[in-house]
């Protein structure tokens, strides 16, 4: 392909770009919080820079628009480097949703690579684990509700009540104090750095040894032993390779503030 056709295609893609309504993002002020994940075996205060987060997870309808505009991410065309056989498995066809994938449901069965590419297409990125956890610490009235046993139990109940099923519709629960919906109860969400939350040795390397395989005493441990829902989430995510996809794993994107 000549450079001219390359540029022509690029322009054509850009020209068709604004067919989709822009997603809602809400500003999250920066702050300092104590992550449930231990650093070097102890609780650690984490500084979070301001960013903006998608109010809702990415839906099947939104992901369908994305693969329409970026055919290299359609089922059947995507490189085996970036996705496996489970990719968009609930969809009836590469461009057809179907009864198991309603337009308003969160998209799942997407690889980390695909989630990342979707976010890039709306000038965004996947959140870091800490960014996700910082926002997910909230409930309807508090920025950090993690020490409320009733709140933690209700999240756990919601997760256990839906084990194995694809996530239902978005928005059954009220938005949290940030204005963000469905972070805790509905599905697992990819984070940009999930793969470095090494549970024990790095299980993805056959024959990997233990401690020395990881830099900085970074093997995964929870400083807050009451966060069962977070433990389940980390276990679910770290079981996956970046090209894997799973029926309960979707994503949402975040953006850095303009001008940075």
């Amino acid at each position: 392909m000549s450079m001219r056709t390359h540029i022509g295609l690029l322009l054509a893609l850009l020209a068709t770009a604004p067919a989709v309504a822009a997603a809602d993002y809400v500003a999250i002020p920066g702050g300092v919080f104590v992550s449930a994940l231990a650093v070097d075996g102890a609780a650690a205060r984490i500084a979070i820079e301001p960013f903006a987060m998608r109010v809702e997870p990415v839906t099947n309808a939104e992901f369908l628009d994305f693969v329409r505009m970026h055919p290299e991410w359609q089922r059947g065309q995507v490189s085996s480097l970036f996705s496996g056989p489970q990719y968009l498995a609930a969809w009836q066809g590469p461009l057809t949703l179907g009864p198991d994938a309603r337009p308003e449901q969160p998209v799942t069965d997407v690889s980390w690579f695909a989630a990342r590419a979707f976010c890039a297409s709306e000038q965004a990125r996947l959140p870091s684990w800490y960014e996700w956890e910082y926002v997910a610490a909230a409930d309807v009235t508090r920025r950090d509700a993690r020490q409320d046993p009733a709140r933690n139990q209700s999240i756990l109940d919601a997760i256990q009540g839906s084990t194995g099923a694809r996530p239902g519709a978005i928005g059954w629960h009220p938005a949290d104090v940030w204005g963000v919906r469905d972070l805790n109860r509905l599905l697992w969400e990819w984070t940009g750095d999930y793969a470095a939350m090494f549970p024990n040795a790095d299980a993805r390397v056959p024959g990997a040894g233990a401690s020395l395989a990881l830099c900085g005493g970074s093997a995964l441990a929870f400083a807050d032993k009451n966060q069962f829902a977070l433990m389940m989430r980390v276990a679910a995510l770290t079981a996956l390779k970046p090209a894997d996809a799973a029926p309960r794993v979707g994503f949402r994107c975040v953006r850095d503030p303009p001008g940075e």
Partner: protein
Amino acid sequence: MRIPRLLLRFASLALFAPLALTASPGAAPLPDNSVYRIPALTLRDQQGDVFSFASLRGEPRLVSMFYGSCKMVCPLLIENIKRIEQAVAARGAAPLPVVLVSFDPGHDDVAMLARVAANHHLSAPLYRLTTPISGDYGALAAVLGIAYRPLPDGGYAHNTVVALLDGEGRVLATTDAAGKPAPAFVAAVVMVAAH
């Protein structure tokens, strides 16, 4: 977090990468699972030379990732890569070129790369220590099975995977280079180097 915002922004270029790949004249298409299919990634090495990751196609090599200010495991990683190369040489094969890519481009400039290279007595062209200047090095890490995460003290949690690539960018073998060279990995490198 210390990831330069500019680099994150370049991630949006990812979407056009397949077009860019097919635009290179005369080259046969890459295999479906070639790591050279990742979005465009531009690197600068310890001598200041700038090149695209995809331009490494054509010759088998070892690839890993590191960060320069790492005190413990990265020096170990580099020494263990040297031990792999020595084990390969001991079996009569020519050493494969090694490319190390930093996942801390905010700190790893040419001076830092040159310092690390000097500390470990590594010289180009056999050993190229590089830092990304544009593009999506997170995708490179992911396709190689390398993972890293910034920690609050400015360091990173990361693993020490080294990948053996064939000339077309297929991952033939990986090893966790935290200890003695794994015999199976050395054997794989010898086999590739012998061709």
